[in-house]
């Protein structure tokens, strides 16, 4: 009974998101190269965003979860296209020429 009422998933998620925040903070407190720091920040940020979306904004718990996930995938895809494309035309192309 107690077990069913206790929001295990949410509590674990909350702890995990705190851990992610702590890991991201390490970039500030420890000395590391720009590349490593950026990688840590990006990875933790994306996991964090996904976690919040699924656990605390309840994506996937309602009937229209397909619509929600399709729009999220679509949005992520567009964002990736836009960012990589912009980097390619504005930055990378000049570095490799």
């Amino acid at each position, binding site marked *: 009974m107690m077990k069913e009422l206790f929001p295990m998933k949410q509590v674990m998620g909350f702890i995990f998101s705190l851990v992610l925040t702590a890991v991201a903070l390490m970039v500030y407190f420890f000395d590391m190269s720009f590349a490593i720091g950026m990688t840590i920040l990006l990875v933790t940020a994306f996991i964090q965003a996904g976690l919040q979306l699924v656990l605390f904004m309840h994506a996937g718990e309602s009937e229209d979860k397909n619509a929600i996930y399709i729009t999220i995938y679509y949005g992520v*895809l*567009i964002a990736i296209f836009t960012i990589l494309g*912009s980097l390619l035309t504005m930055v990378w*192309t000049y570095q490799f020429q």
Partner: protein
Amino acid sequence: MEFFERFAIPHPSPAIYASMVAIAVVSIAIVVGLTYFKKWGYLWREWLTTVDHKRLGIMYIIAAILMLFRGGADAIMMRAQLSAPENKLLDAQHYNEIFTTHGVVMILFMAMPFIIGFMNFVVPLQIGARDVAFPRLNALSFWLFFAGAMLFNISFVVGGSPDAGWTSYFPLADNEFSTSVGTNYYMIAIQIAGLGTLATGINFLTTILKMRAPGMTLMKMPMFTWSALITNVIIVFAFPVLTVALAMGTLDRLFGTHFFASTNGGMDMLWANLFWVWGHPEVYILILPAFGIYSEVISTFARRNLYGYKSMVASMVIISLLSFVVWVHHFFTMGQGAFVNSIFSITTMAIAVPTGVKIFNWLLTLYKGKIVMTTPMLYSMLFIPLFTLGGVTGVMLGMSAADYQYHNTMFLVAHFHMVIIPGVVFAMLAALYYYWPKMFGFMLNDRLGKIGAWIIAIGTLVAFMPMFISGLDGQARRMYTYSEASGFGIWNMISMVGALMLAAGFALIVYNIYYSFRHAPRDIGSDPWDARTLEWATHTPIPEYNFATMPKIDTYETFWDSKKKGTTLFPDKIEKIHMPNNSGIPFIMGIIFFLWGFSFVFAMWIPLIICTLGIFACMAYQSFENDHGRYISIEEIEETEKELGGKR
């Protein structure tokens, strides 16, 4: 006095002073007229505070037509200036201002409200809904658009027009080279209207996904609704980029940041990049609803179902993705090199494929159909060959190596006018003729309509085909004059003739509205075209609740089937209907946003802060307001239905 100096025009001319007088006179005439005929109350109750999607749609369309004439006046002035070499009608500065406002007005304040207006009017009817998902937000969208449009339009009489092109490239658009407040108007007016558009996108996405009549699965939606769905997806993903770019541009101009400056670590070409990340999807935001209109019109007047429904849907979904990966084709010459250009050349040419699929589907629909040549159908028939000219030249521009020759010449100008006019404007005119009886209860005259369509089509060709030639000969765009020796004179003179034909064509449409208002019969029934989709299953005039009972959908053309096979579309009994109340908040917020924008343009911080507080006050009021809408009783519905000729 010093305070008021900022509102003076930096570069005046008699024509601008004349416009000031004209604007003042017209405004006074409107106020006097409304007071004299005691129409203020009517205006407030029925229009300014309305949340009804049909009325908002009509207001969008009226605004779009007004803006068409503003933009058209700009166009005639430009063509007149260029009609002869070394002409002195306009000077360089005025020419710059006019091509800038022409572009912004036509794309953002004519084409956008036109399509959004028809989306408002048609989509809820086509899916059997009583309104959009968030009616009050819908009203706010309209008033934000309207505030933005009006703010932009007064620029030329208060403080000076923007003059850096509709693309407003930095560093030209920065304070160093654009010293008047003109470009502030650009940044802030478009921002306000853009917020409205973004809200529309979310609103219609929700409406189409959540409010379809029972039985209408996605693959049973009418094609215009499909195109609206895809368009709104693109709006939701593209407009935030514009929002951010405009905010950064505003910061650069008013708060001394250097995002787009060429010094201090700024990146001037980042503006071009962000602008086109929004800008290319934007051209598809314009063209997809137009395609939706053509699909409806062609299948109605070919008297058969649309050929290749699934491939139509698939091609739009593919277009929605591809439209986000081609933007670099607008600046192939920026210097990013052959590798990057090749990638974007390929994606650009790929997007012509799904577009071609749609063209073939329409042709095949016609091939097996029994064609009835009405005015909307005539526009659709003229669209196919003319748009193909624009599309093919688009593919030519898409080849990056070749684009070095065409870029920023009149060839480019000819390309985008040949896609936008036959593509978007013809569709909007077709829709105007097609939906006019539903909106106003009488038909527009078909003979005048057809004459107008021919004049406009021939005018388009005469105005823009010569530009392909003078462009290939090297005439640059956005130049206020050229020498006699260049030999461009003859082509520009021909263009001028075409522009006058276009003006005559539009004038004929206005005359047609007047003529039909006077003479057209009013007993046209509710389905004068013998059409196929749900919007024609309503009464004319449409009662505010659209459908007394919910239609039951089982095929993609249930209304048509119900007419042919005699099945019942509305099986349910009448129940009381829940409707939203009118609200003055969206209109008031529109006014505050206008003042907010105006203060921002002139960097008047105290009024800006007051307006900002006003906006938040409206939002707070809205949040705490306890308004659960109202019910229309069964008796009242029965009464209305009886008056309109019986419940369906």
